[in-house]
């Protein structure tokens, strides 16, 4: 059993999420080898039993943490589950220390929270809850769970592109989401495949409003002055360094580049470095592969117009013949790539292993629940926080679970099949 204990503990130390983990005696020996005679036991390889990694349950408010979904410059994104509704969620974990190192990091997060809290649309990601841990200098943004990034799906294919019908499906949803955002006076400014997520039923959700801009309610038009979006998706007016530009048309351009990328696996403009790239974008010279039909290349041309005034608007795009037309699904439709080391085709909940820990019967586990952190109820990033419910503490009533567990076998009338 000693081997078994060692494995999870050593693994857990890698995770800085769990500072409460006790130091393993084995490791202290390693640190101070003079003090204790170092004995090497000979173990037959057959005796070594590889135990699966034990996952330790961790709660943030009512959310039980699962595996990591991704990692950005701001911090990690993990899967989690709402322990009341059992709904799958994603949590963006932001560390203030990291945010300070990024230009406008804290401001961007603040803006994103303020924007997302007000938005509710089928094609825009929803922010459900914000938790702040002042002691750890961390912030947790609880979002809707999405099963895959568009970028991840593109990368799972050989040519890094989708069949036309699939691009058509996603693009139509993107336009609907953009129409809503623009209607709300919001310029996203960072539309690209890695900011477009898909739910289990393939509904597209626009995410990452970190560099988005909310126009002033009384602004005469959608003139913007700043942009921090991804270089390859920037329009000529930004590449050329214009002081002001038309905000909504920036999103149109980026959506055009996204559509170009999804259908061809290429980018309309490239460059060895950001300078060369911007020079090429500024020139506005690109070619559309002849593999694309004339209707689609007409749409792309309309969206990738150098002059923002000549560029199509969202309403024109919505009514474009290529967008309107019905396409049936072709056999080369790209499925969601399998997830995790095991290659799970269903992309099942990773939280289950943590649930095992939460409800495992061994009494020695109790100390793990000391992880309960008490969160301050202030949300420093939201000035006008009109009632996002914040759960102040997350004590797990473990003793309750236990008492109940004792009779659950009988009352639940269950048997293991």
């Amino acid at each position, binding site marked *: 059993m000693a081997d078994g204990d060692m494995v999870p503990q050593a693994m857990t130390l890698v995770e800085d999420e769990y500072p409460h983990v006790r130091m393993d005696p084995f490791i202290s020996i390693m640190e101070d080898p003079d003090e204790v005679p170092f004995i090497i036991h000979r173990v037959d390889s057959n005796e070594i039993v590889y135990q699966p990694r034990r996952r330790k349950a961790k709660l943030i408010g009512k959310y039980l943490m699962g595996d990591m979904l991704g990692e950005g410059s701001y911090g990690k994104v993990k899967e989690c589950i709402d322990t009341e509704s059992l709904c799958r969620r994603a949590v963006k974990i932001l560390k203030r220390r990291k945010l300070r190192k990024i230009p406008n990091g804290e401001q961007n997060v603040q803006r994103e929270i303020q924007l997302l809290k007000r938005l509710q649309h089928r094609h825009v990601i929803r922010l459900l809850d914000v938790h702040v841990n002042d002691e750890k200098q961390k912030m947790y943004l609880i979002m809707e769970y999405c099963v895959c990034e568009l970028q991840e799906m593109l990368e799972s294919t050989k040519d890094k592109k989708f069949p036309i019908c699939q691009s058509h499906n996603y693009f139509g949803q993107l336009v609907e989401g953009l129409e809503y955002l623009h209607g709300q006076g919001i310029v996203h400014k960072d539309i690209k495949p890695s900011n477009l997520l898909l739910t289990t039923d393939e509904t597209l959700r626009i995410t990452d409003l970190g560099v988005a801009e909310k126009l002033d309610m009384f602004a005469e038009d959608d003139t913007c002055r700043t942009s921090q979006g991804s270089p390859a998706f920037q329009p000529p007016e930004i590449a050329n360094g214009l002081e002001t530009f038309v905000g909504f048309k920036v999103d149109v351009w980026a959506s055009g580049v996204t559509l170009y990328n999804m259908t061809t696996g290429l980018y309309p403009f490239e460059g060895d470095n950001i300078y060369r790239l911007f020079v090429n974008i500024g020139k506005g010279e690109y070619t559309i592969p002849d593999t694309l039909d004339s209707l689609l290349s007409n749409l792309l041309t309309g969206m990738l117009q150098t002059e923002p005034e000549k560029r199509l608007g969202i309403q024109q795009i919505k009514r474009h013949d290529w967008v309107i037309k019905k396409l049936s699904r072709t056999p080369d439709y790209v499925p969601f790539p399998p997830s995790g080391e095991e290659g799970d085709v269903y992309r099942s909940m990773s939280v289950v292993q943590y649930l095992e820990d939460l409800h495992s019967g061994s009494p020695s586990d109790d100390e793990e629940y000391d992880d309960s952190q008490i969160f301050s109820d202030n949300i420093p990033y939201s000035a006008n926080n009109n009632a996002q419910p914040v759960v102040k503490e997350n004590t797990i009533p473990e003793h309750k679970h236990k008492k109940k567990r004792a009779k659950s076998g009988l*009352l639940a009338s269950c048997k293991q099949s």
Partner: protein
Amino acid sequence: MSLLQQCACASSKTKESPTAVPYSRKHQTTSASPPQNDGLSQGEDNRIHSTMMSSGSFVPDTKHYELYTVIGRGCNDTAGIILTKHIPSSKHIAIKKTNLESCDIDFSVLQNEVILCRQLQHEKVLPILTTFIHDHELWTVMPLMAYGSCKDLIHAYFTNGLSEQASSYILRDTLLALEYLHSKGIIHRSVRASHILVAANGNVCLSGLRDAHSMIQRGRRLRIVHDYPQHFVRSLQWLAPEILEQNLMGYDCLSDIYSVGITACELANGYAPFTDMPVTQMLLEKINGTKPVLADCTTIADLVGEENTNQGHDSGIDSEATNSREITDLANARKFSHHFHNFVEICLEKSLETRPSASTLLGHSFFKHLKKKTSEMLPSLIQPLSPLTDISKLPKAQAGDVDDLAEDINNMSMEEGWDF
């Protein structure tokens, strides 16, 4: 009060003392008379049912309805179910009044329920006769289901479960309703005892279509759906594992069949499985393939064996040990047929490939002996309970006086009411 809590308290009461019925005595004394002799005769009730479906006589006008008393709550307690007299016909009906201002449910969800229900017409699906908005309230006019829900039956008298025969009639009618809904591409998603209602004549209707989900989207019938009913926390116990898992596999109409299996246990045992554990543990149990069973002398030995091993880990639960003994005694004293056991087992198949459809299940040996109509048999099987029909004795309420009515509910014989 949340329904989960109700479940928990129901089962705990069962443990404390099987004779103590959490219900007013008054009701039981009135129940001595057979249901046919009550204020509303069976014939009349039948007529109501047949005419209600087709008649356009239910007008969206409050003047046509004389409200009596609250007989239940719904919609997270923001809706009251009110026993009502339809003045033009002098018939007794039920009106669900939902306060739209205090209701935390999205209006579109309520709207969907109405739109869906009005497209349906089946003897075993509770119809909506008319709906309208009066002030800040949504009025939904429905036939009166005078026995209340099957959960009411359990709470009122059958705290240790209904008889196998009564359960079989109720389950058959539930499956008939599901067979119809599934043929229309509708997944009910909250089949449970509190959504199965019994009329004075014994007819069984499925209600609770607020959580229902249509597989027909944009003119196409989908093979699987993924929508997670995140607002319906109260039905989590009954949900199939594939709904709870929320992965790419998705789910379909067969997920309702799993809920039928859980409901079968609920009807026969008197409490729903997984009642006494946190929902997170329930999720784990379902994913790990735990299959609830009917508690009787054939299964109790296994269940108690499990119990004893559990007690090995945990000490200091003497009071619970005595409760377990009571349950053990109860279970030992009864035996369900192997048909019933098998029915529950196949409903609770984890794999969608092996789980049967509603139509297949209607041919199951469990239902072989049922020749008569449920409405002919059920009232006699749920005696001594009687339907709520003698309205003349009830206090007449002022229209729109829901808040006061809500207080009256405690004095009413049908405490638990309906859960729509």
